[in-house]
């Protein structure tokens, strides 16, 4: 290679490497701001600020959804399978909202440790399957031990 071209190539490589390091350090420093939501473990450990608008994300715990009989008030627990946070929400939930599904809720954590949400978004995972396959999976997993199923869900789905 021609020496001038070699020199130019070195400059280009240094440019790209330098920018990559700068951006890498910046995003690393801002990682808490880039994260869209706090997960239940962080909230349970007290890392999330109280009475500040934040987002909380995780899976809706099985059997935790309770609807108020004469209003739109819904309460449920959001879990990441190691800790869980109680959530209260008044309003219309997205179609995909269901027990065992991922959600991201926006709202404030009150001093009793209850997350009062004013917006609930459904989080979809990367798995797609036809309805028949889902039914077959459901049927075959019913015979097995429940906790094995939950463990598998924790491994394969990103909440």
């Amino acid at each position, binding site marked *: 290679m021609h020496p001038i071209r070699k020199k130019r190539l070195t400059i280009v490589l240094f*440019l790209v490497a330098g920018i990559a390091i700068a951006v890498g350090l910046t995003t690393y420093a801002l990682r808490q701001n880039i994260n869209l939501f706090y997960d239940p473990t962080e909230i349970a450990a007290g890392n999330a600020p109280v009475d500040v608008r934040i987002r909380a994300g995780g899976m809706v715990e099985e059997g935790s959804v309770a609807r108020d009989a004469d209003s739109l008030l819904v309460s449920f627990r959001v879990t990441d399978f190691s800790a869980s946070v109680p959530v209260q929400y008044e309003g219309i939930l997205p179609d995909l909202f269901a027990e065992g599904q991922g959600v991201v809720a926006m709202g404030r954590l009150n001093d009793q440790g209850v997350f009062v949400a004013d917006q609930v978004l459904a989080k979809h995972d990367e798995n797609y399957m036809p309805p028949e396959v889902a039914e077959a999976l459901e049927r075959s997993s019913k015979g097995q031990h429940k906790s094995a199923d939950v463990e598998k869900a924790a491994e394969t789905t990103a909440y």
Partner: protein
Amino acid sequence: MWQFFHKLGSPKWFFGIATRFMPWLLAAGAILLMAGVVWGLAFAPKDYLQGNSYRIIFIHVPTAFLAQSIYIMMAFAAVVTLVWRMKLADVFVKSVAPVGLIFTFLSLFTGAVWGKPTWGTWWVWDARLTSMLILLFLYGGAIALDRAINDEKSAARAVAVLVLVGVVNIPIIQYSVEWWNTLHQPSTFKLTEKPSMPAEMWVPLLLSVLGLYCLFGWLACVRMKTEILMREQKTRWVRELIMAERG
């Protein structure tokens, strides 16, 4: 190898090659894309959770793939522009930047349309969506910078530097869903693992991705040929070509 590389720098040689390959690229692109989209939209099974709304994936994923791939190709061309000062590399960057811009916009738009019924919101400032929006601005910036500088050579170098600076955004888009908590789900297609959807869904998706690549190849050839004719209009081979065309 170097001889081939230097030949590639000749606009006239590329013009001939592109003319020969274009019908094939167009035919392959049209067939693959039609097959993938029709199969995906009409015949693939619906999703157990989202029903039919997931079908936008057959448009969303190909455009998002192309939006990133085109930028990576532009970055390689930018290195060639800066190091070897090859005219053809700059012609490529200039010609495909608007195509990349359109694909990025389409992937953001289809994502928003899907996000409203699925997530419950059109837009959320999570890492994936935001980094994709930055990609849109990078494409826009490259186009604007090129138009803003009159001198062809300085424009080429300035755009090349901008494109290279922006290339750090590509791994951020790719890994955003793994590095940070995002609303956007992780990739369904991974290089090392089986896709997390059944074959009757991913085969049409793969067909439409490949089809869009071919169609992009064709589009790049069309735009590059136009750009070459504009730049080389004073040379003998272009004049002869036009004379022959007029008969």
